[in-house]
């Protein structure tokens, strides 16, 4: 038994003319056996549409579109190129890939250079004292090491008073992260989660 009436039309010889009385949007699963459906033209095996040539309705638009999409695949046909044309195609493709590769490498190099220069600037700031001079002997140390200049508390730990107070002050100021999120709406900082929150909406929230 067909599930819905629109499938009937795929069998043109048995197309029941009575179904055209139903509204076109009817998708109800009606149990309709061939015996229960009355044929209006019982003497003819062909449908009425054949008789009215040309001016009959074109059928259900949904069926037309289904048929269209069944016979017209979404994927275009594969490229069929001749030998030399395929080779030209390949050449252009390789050149394009090479170009993209070079662009990517250049972008990475720029980033690397920027990072390195920022790092060098921070290192210079770390070793600068209040007079704007580089602390002697500090250049040989890397950022992480406990050096002469640099982070908070180094000089206190060493028991040096006053002398290195301002060494690396600009570095510490640069490393200070307070206020970097100022001006950014807090909603943008909310991280994405796999599941919704237990309370979906915070009704009490105000800015």
């Amino acid at each position, binding site marked *: 038994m067909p599930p819905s009436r629109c499938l009937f039309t795929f069998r043109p010889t048995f197309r029941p003319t009575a179904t055209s009385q139903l509204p076109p949007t009817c998708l109800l699963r009606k149990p309709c056996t061939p015996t229960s459906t009355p044929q209006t033209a019982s003497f003819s095996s062909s449908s009425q549409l054949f008789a009215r040539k040309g001016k009959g309705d074109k059928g259900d638009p949904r069926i037309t579109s289904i048929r269209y999409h069944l016979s017209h695949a979404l994927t275009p046909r594969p490229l069929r190129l001749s030998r*030399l044309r395929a*080779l*030209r195609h*390949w*050449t*252009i493709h*390789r*050149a*394009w890939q*090479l*170009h993209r590769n070079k662009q990517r490498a250049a972008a990475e190099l720029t980033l690397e250079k920027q990072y390195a220069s920022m790092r060098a600037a921070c290192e210079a700031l770390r070793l600068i004292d209040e007079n704007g001079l580089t602390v002697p002997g500090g250049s040989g140390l890397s950022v992480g090491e406990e050096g002469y200049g640099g982070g908070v508390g180094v000089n206190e730990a060493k028991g040096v008073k006053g002398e290195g107070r301002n060494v690396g002050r600009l570095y510490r100021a640069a490393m200070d992260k307070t206020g970097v999120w100022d001006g950014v709406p807090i909603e943008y900082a909310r991280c994405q989660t796999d599941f919704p929150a237990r309370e979906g909406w915070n009704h009490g929230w105000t800015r």
Partner: protein
Amino acid sequence: MPIGSRRRRAALKDSLNIPFEQLPYQCFQDARKVLQDDRQEKIKQIEVARLRIANLKAQDEAISGGKQAKENRLRSMHNRLEELKILADINDPVVKKKHEDGEGDMNKPIYRYLADKQWRQYRRKILEQRISQLNLVPDILPNLDPVAEVDLAFGRHKIPHGDFVDSLISENVPRLKVQVFDKGERLVTVVVVDPDVPIVQRDGFDYRCHFIASNIPISPTSTSIALNQLDLRVKDASAKHIALPWLPPTAHRGAPYHRLAVFLLRQADGKVIDTAKVGDSTKRDGFILRSFMDKQKLTPVGVTVFRTKWDENMAGVMQRAGLGDQVNMEFKRKRVEPLPYKKKDGARYR
């Protein structure tokens, strides 16, 4: 058969015959220009790499951090150089076309690289499958990593790896087509081993050596080894290639098939094998390839295999090979006495 329709061929014949690189398509020409610029860049890099290698070679070991470190660095620099040589040509459409047409010059690294890649894509995979299916690896050698393509043919008959060969065909000496993918000339030894010789007394199987030929020069361009013509021109007894001449593969009636594995073994650099001595000292029956390789300092580079079994021509082949007494020998399965068991009551099954 000519390619293309008659109409197309006529049109092509009348048109001016422009070489492929000069075809007047703007995008294509621009792409070629990009690729050529890249090639010039790569060539410059190659020159720099060569200069650096030369500098490092001239450097004192103490400066470059010891002998081991210097060798390691040299090796990695050489690898980089080879890589650059391939990168310089890999984007060339003419190179690709020549490779696809089989006209590549195997003396050039790019064509060797492309051929190797093509071989590994499909044909080597089949070879690997045959090696594992026919159990060559645990049976004859502990491990095997083929790096050279070996094709076997008896006269006109090309034999795919692992195929059954009629005994009349395999009575003659085969010829090999060997393609190596690394540069330079080297000496190889060809050994044919049959690991399936039945030993009745032991109720087991043993090895037999069917052929040994040594000191065969092979390079990427000289690919053919006609094993039957190896010693035709050689007059000097010490320069003979063949240590053990071809013994036609045989199988007895009723016995399982025999695998005939053809090994291509690379000789150590500059080592020439004394074939007369090898021929005298090597016994065909009970030949162990592993100890032979250890003794002669050989490394396996290529392999192929074919199979043989009893067929209608085998009796004649055995007669001619001097095994006439074994022609009528037939192997049969030993009858396994059924275990005593009580017949069950037939009524249960009704």
